[in-house]
Protein backbone atom coordinates (compact mmCIF):
# COMPACT_ATOMS: atom_id res chain seq x y z
CA UNK A 1 0.00 0.00 0.00
CA UNK A 2 1.34 3.44 -0.95
CA UNK A 3 0.73 6.67 0.92
CA UNK A 4 1.13 10.27 -0.19
CA UNK A 5 1.49 12.93 2.49
CA UNK A 6 0.59 16.41 1.29
CA UNK A 7 2.12 18.99 3.62
CA UNK A 8 0.74 22.50 3.84
CA UNK A 9 2.90 24.77 6.00
CA UNK A 10 3.98 28.30 5.10
CA UNK A 11 6.91 28.21 7.55
CA UNK A 12 8.00 24.62 7.19
CA UNK A 13 11.69 25.24 7.84
CA UNK A 14 10.93 26.73 11.29
CA UNK A 15 8.74 23.86 12.49
CA UNK A 16 10.36 21.31 14.80
CA UNK A 17 7.19 19.17 14.68
CA UNK A 18 7.17 18.96 10.89
CA UNK A 19 10.89 18.20 10.82
CA UNK A 20 10.32 15.39 13.32
CA UNK A 21 7.42 13.93 11.32
CA UNK A 22 9.32 14.24 8.04
CA UNK A 23 12.38 12.41 9.40
CA UNK A 24 10.10 9.70 10.77
CA UNK A 25 8.11 9.36 7.56
CA UNK A 26 11.19 9.08 5.38
CA UNK A 27 12.20 5.93 7.25
CA UNK A 28 9.04 4.19 6.10
CA UNK A 29 8.85 2.34 2.79
CA UNK A 30 6.04 3.30 0.39
CA UNK A 31 5.46 6.73 1.94
CA UNK A 32 6.06 9.84 -0.19
CA UNK A 33 5.88 13.51 0.67
CA UNK A 34 4.76 16.49 -1.34
CA UNK A 35 5.22 20.07 -0.14
CA UNK A 36 2.28 22.09 -1.38
CA UNK A 37 3.88 25.46 -0.70
CA UNK A 38 6.84 24.47 -2.88
CA UNK A 39 4.51 23.44 -5.70
CA UNK A 40 3.10 26.95 -5.79
CA UNK A 41 6.50 28.43 -6.38
CA UNK A 42 6.20 26.93 -9.86
CA UNK A 43 3.62 27.82 -12.50
CA UNK A 44 0.17 26.88 -11.25
CA UNK A 45 -1.17 25.55 -14.56
CA UNK A 46 1.55 22.88 -14.73
CA UNK A 47 0.79 21.25 -11.42
CA UNK A 48 -2.88 20.36 -11.86
CA UNK A 49 -2.57 17.51 -14.33
CA UNK A 50 0.67 16.28 -12.85
CA UNK A 51 -0.83 16.21 -9.33
CA UNK A 52 -4.02 14.50 -10.47
CA UNK A 53 -1.95 11.82 -12.13
CA UNK A 54 0.22 11.43 -9.04
CA UNK A 55 -2.75 11.13 -6.64
CA UNK A 56 -4.21 8.17 -8.50
CA UNK A 57 -1.11 6.10 -7.68
CA UNK A 58 -1.72 6.14 -3.93
CA UNK A 59 -4.13 4.19 -1.74
CA UNK A 60 -3.92 6.56 1.25
CA UNK A 61 -3.72 10.33 0.97
CA UNK A 62 -2.88 12.42 4.01
CA UNK A 63 -3.28 16.15 4.50
CA UNK A 64 -0.73 17.29 7.05
CA UNK A 65 -0.82 20.83 8.40
CA UNK A 66 -0.77 23.06 11.47
CA UNK A 67 -4.20 24.34 12.45
CA UNK A 68 -4.48 28.00 11.42
CA UNK A 69 -7.61 29.73 12.69
CA UNK A 70 -9.49 26.42 12.95
CA UNK A 71 -8.68 25.32 9.42
CA UNK A 72 -5.71 24.46 7.24
CA UNK A 73 -3.26 27.06 5.97
CA UNK A 74 -4.36 28.70 2.71
CA UNK A 75 -2.08 26.62 0.49
CA UNK A 76 -4.03 23.40 1.12
CA UNK A 77 -7.32 25.10 0.28
CA UNK A 78 -5.73 26.51 -2.88
CA UNK A 79 -4.46 23.03 -3.79
CA UNK A 80 -7.89 21.48 -3.23
CA UNK A 81 -9.59 24.17 -5.32
CA UNK A 82 -7.11 23.73 -8.16
CA UNK A 83 -6.39 20.00 -8.25
CA UNK A 84 -9.70 18.50 -7.16
CA UNK A 85 -11.68 19.50 -10.20
CA UNK A 86 -15.26 18.36 -10.56
CA UNK A 87 -14.25 16.14 -13.45
CA UNK A 88 -11.45 14.48 -11.45
CA UNK A 89 -13.42 13.92 -8.23
CA UNK A 90 -17.10 13.63 -9.15
CA UNK A 91 -17.35 12.67 -12.83
CA UNK A 92 -14.40 10.30 -13.13
CA UNK A 93 -14.37 9.17 -9.46
CA UNK A 94 -10.60 9.05 -9.43
CA UNK A 95 -10.32 9.25 -5.65
CA UNK A 96 -13.03 6.69 -4.92
CA UNK A 97 -12.15 3.92 -2.42
CA UNK A 98 -8.96 5.65 -1.35
CA UNK A 99 -8.40 6.67 2.28
CA UNK A 100 -8.14 10.28 3.43
CA UNK A 101 -6.21 10.94 6.63
CA UNK A 102 -5.57 14.24 8.41
CA UNK A 103 -2.47 14.93 10.49
CA UNK A 104 -3.09 18.19 12.31
CA UNK A 105 -0.71 19.90 14.70
CA UNK A 106 -1.98 22.18 17.47
CA UNK A 107 -0.30 24.82 19.57
CA UNK A 108 -3.02 24.48 22.20
CA UNK A 109 -3.87 21.44 24.32
CA UNK A 110 -6.15 18.98 22.55
CA UNK A 111 -8.16 18.61 25.76
CA UNK A 112 -9.47 22.17 25.31
CA UNK A 113 -11.14 21.21 22.03
CA UNK A 114 -14.42 20.01 23.49
CA UNK A 115 -17.63 21.36 24.96
CA UNK A 116 -16.70 23.21 28.13
CA UNK A 117 -13.06 23.58 27.06
CA UNK A 118 -11.59 26.98 26.17
CA UNK A 119 -11.66 26.16 22.43
CA UNK A 120 -15.26 24.98 22.75
CA UNK A 121 -15.44 22.92 19.51
CA UNK A 122 -14.07 19.44 18.88
CA UNK A 123 -11.40 18.63 16.32
CA UNK A 124 -13.95 16.47 14.48
CA UNK A 125 -16.31 19.44 14.18
CA UNK A 126 -13.61 21.80 12.99
CA UNK A 127 -12.34 19.35 10.37
CA UNK A 128 -15.83 18.65 9.03
CA UNK A 129 -15.16 20.21 5.56
CA UNK A 130 -12.44 17.60 4.95
CA UNK A 131 -14.79 14.83 6.04
CA UNK A 132 -17.48 16.21 3.69
CA UNK A 133 -14.95 16.24 0.88
CA UNK A 134 -13.96 12.61 1.55
CA UNK A 135 -17.64 11.67 1.54
CA UNK A 136 -18.26 13.40 -1.78
CA UNK A 137 -15.17 11.82 -3.31
CA UNK A 138 -16.16 8.31 -2.12
CA UNK A 139 -13.10 8.09 0.10
CA UNK A 140 -12.84 6.47 3.54
CA UNK A 141 -12.21 9.22 6.08
CA UNK A 142 -9.72 8.15 8.76
CA UNK A 143 -9.84 9.36 12.35
CA UNK A 144 -7.70 12.53 12.41
CA UNK A 145 -4.25 12.19 13.94
CA UNK A 146 -3.67 15.08 16.33
CA UNK A 147 -0.26 16.23 17.51
CA UNK A 148 -0.57 18.75 20.29
CA UNK A 149 2.06 20.77 22.11
CA UNK A 150 4.94 18.82 20.64
CA UNK A 151 7.46 21.03 22.46
CA UNK A 152 6.27 19.78 25.85
CA UNK A 153 6.67 16.06 25.12
CA UNK A 154 9.20 13.96 27.00
CA UNK A 155 11.64 11.69 25.14
CA UNK A 156 9.61 8.48 25.61
CA UNK A 157 6.41 10.28 24.57
CA UNK A 158 8.14 11.42 21.38
CA UNK A 159 9.22 7.84 20.69
CA UNK A 160 5.65 6.59 21.01
CA UNK A 161 4.32 9.54 18.96
CA UNK A 162 6.76 8.66 16.18
CA UNK A 163 5.51 5.09 15.96
CA UNK A 164 1.84 6.13 16.23
CA UNK A 165 2.43 8.53 13.33
CA UNK A 166 4.18 5.89 11.21
CA UNK A 167 1.35 3.46 11.85
CA UNK A 168 -1.21 6.12 10.95
CA UNK A 169 0.44 6.72 7.60
CA UNK A 170 1.37 3.16 6.71
CA UNK A 171 -0.36 0.44 8.75
CA UNK A 172 -3.49 -1.41 7.76
CA UNK A 173 -6.60 0.33 9.17
CA UNK A 174 -8.20 0.16 11.69
CA UNK A 175 -5.30 0.49 14.10
CA UNK A 176 -6.37 -2.50 16.19
CA UNK A 177 -3.94 -4.43 18.40
CA UNK A 178 -3.73 -7.04 15.67
CA UNK A 179 -2.82 -4.56 12.90
CA UNK A 180 -0.40 -2.68 15.13
CA UNK A 181 1.28 -6.00 16.04
CA UNK A 182 1.68 -6.91 12.36
CA UNK A 183 3.17 -3.51 11.61
CA UNK A 184 5.65 -3.73 14.50
CA UNK A 185 6.71 -7.25 13.58
CA UNK A 186 7.34 -5.99 10.06
CA UNK A 187 9.51 -3.11 11.33
CA UNK A 188 11.42 -5.40 13.73
CA UNK A 189 12.06 -7.80 10.85
CA UNK A 190 13.28 -4.90 8.75
CA UNK A 191 15.57 -3.77 11.60
CA UNK A 192 17.34 -7.15 11.54
CA UNK A 193 19.07 -6.27 8.27
CA UNK A 194 21.39 -3.78 9.94
CA UNK A 195 22.18 -5.88 13.03
CA UNK A 196 24.93 -8.26 14.17
CA UNK A 197 24.26 -12.02 14.09
CA UNK A 198 23.70 -12.04 17.88
CA UNK A 199 21.16 -9.20 17.72
CA UNK A 200 19.44 -10.80 14.74
CA UNK A 201 18.95 -13.92 16.79
CA UNK A 202 17.61 -11.86 19.66
CA UNK A 203 15.16 -10.11 17.32
CA UNK A 204 14.02 -13.45 15.89
CA UNK A 205 13.17 -14.69 19.39
CA UNK A 206 11.38 -11.44 20.23
CA UNK A 207 9.34 -11.57 17.02
CA UNK A 208 8.46 -15.22 17.64
CA UNK A 209 7.27 -14.45 21.18
CA UNK A 210 5.21 -11.43 20.12
CA UNK A 211 3.53 -13.50 17.41
CA UNK A 212 2.88 -16.38 19.83
CA UNK A 213 1.27 -13.97 22.34
CA UNK A 214 -0.93 -12.56 19.58
CA UNK A 215 -2.02 -16.10 18.62
CA UNK A 216 -2.85 -16.75 22.28
CA UNK A 217 -5.01 -13.58 22.35
CA UNK A 218 -6.83 -14.68 19.18
CA UNK A 219 -7.50 -18.14 20.68
CA UNK A 220 -8.79 -16.62 23.92
CA UNK A 221 -11.10 -14.33 21.94
CA UNK A 222 -12.57 -17.33 20.11
CA UNK A 223 -13.12 -19.14 23.42
CA UNK A 224 -14.78 -16.11 25.03
CA UNK A 225 -17.07 -15.66 22.05
CA UNK A 226 -18.04 -19.32 22.24
CA UNK A 227 -18.83 -19.10 25.96
CA UNK A 228 -20.77 -15.82 25.53
CA UNK A 229 -22.80 -17.25 22.66
CA UNK A 230 -23.86 -20.21 24.83
CA UNK A 231 -25.12 -17.92 27.60
CA UNK A 232 -28.69 -16.68 27.71
Amino acid at each position, binding site marked *: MKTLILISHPKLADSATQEFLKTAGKSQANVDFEYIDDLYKETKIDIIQQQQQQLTKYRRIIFQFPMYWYSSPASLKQYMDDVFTRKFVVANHLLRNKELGIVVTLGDAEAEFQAGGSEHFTISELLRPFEAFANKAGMTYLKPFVVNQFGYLEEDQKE*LLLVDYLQYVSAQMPLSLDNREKWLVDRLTHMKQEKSAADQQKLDLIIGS*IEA*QQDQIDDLKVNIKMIRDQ*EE
Partner: protein
Amino acid sequence: MSETNDWLKNQLGQLKEGESSFINRSVLTAAKALVNEQDKRIRQAQDEIDERIWSPDKW
Protein backbone atom coordinates in the same frame (compact mmCIF):
# COMPACT_ATOMS: atom_id res chain seq x y z
CA MET B 1 3.01 -10.10 34.78
CA SER B 2 4.12 -13.29 33.00
CA GLU B 3 7.69 -14.55 32.78
CA THR B 4 7.59 -14.31 28.97
CA ASN B 5 6.60 -10.70 29.30
CA ASP B 6 9.49 -9.92 31.66
CA TRP B 7 11.94 -11.70 29.39
CA LEU B 8 10.63 -9.92 26.29
CA LYS B 9 10.84 -6.50 27.89
CA ASN B 10 14.32 -7.23 29.13
CA GLN B 11 15.49 -8.25 25.63
CA LEU B 12 13.87 -5.18 24.06
CA GLY B 13 15.53 -2.99 26.69
CA GLN B 14 18.95 -4.50 25.94
CA LEU B 15 18.53 -3.89 22.21
CA LYS B 16 17.46 -0.32 22.86
CA GLU B 17 20.54 0.37 24.97
CA GLY B 18 22.80 -0.51 22.07
CA GLU B 19 20.74 1.42 19.55
CA SER B 20 21.73 4.87 18.33
CA SER B 21 19.00 5.53 15.75
CA PHE B 22 16.07 7.45 17.24
CA ILE B 23 13.66 5.71 14.88
CA ASN B 24 14.80 2.22 15.87
CA ARG B 25 14.74 3.21 19.54
CA SER B 26 11.14 4.35 19.05
CA VAL B 27 10.17 1.07 17.39
CA LEU B 28 11.68 -0.85 20.33
CA THR B 29 9.82 1.36 22.85
CA ALA B 30 6.57 0.76 20.96
CA ALA B 31 7.27 -2.99 20.90
CA LYS B 32 7.63 -2.89 24.68
CA ALA B 33 4.31 -1.05 24.98
CA LEU B 34 2.71 -3.66 22.69
CA VAL B 35 4.03 -6.50 24.84
CA ASN B 36 2.46 -4.85 27.91
CA GLU B 37 -0.83 -4.46 26.08
CA GLN B 38 -0.75 -8.12 24.96
CA ASP B 39 -0.05 -9.20 28.52
CA LYS B 40 -3.00 -7.16 29.82
CA ARG B 41 -5.36 -8.54 27.16
CA ILE B 42 -4.31 -12.13 27.91
CA ARG B 43 -4.86 -11.61 31.64
CA GLN B 44 -8.24 -9.94 31.14
CA ALA B 45 -9.39 -12.63 28.70
CA GLN B 46 -8.36 -15.44 31.07
CA ASP B 47 -10.14 -13.68 33.94
CA GLU B 48 -13.28 -13.32 31.84
CA ILE B 49 -13.23 -17.01 30.93
CA ASP B 50 -12.83 -17.95 34.63
CA GLU B 51 -15.70 -15.67 35.65
CA ARG B 52 -18.03 -16.95 32.99
CA ILE B 53 -17.24 -20.62 33.65
CA TRP B 54 -17.64 -20.20 37.42
CA SER B 55 -20.73 -18.05 37.25
CA PRO B 56 -23.08 -18.84 40.26
CA ASP B 57 -25.96 -19.01 37.76
CA LYS B 58 -24.57 -22.30 36.56
CA TRP B 59 -24.22 -23.90 39.98
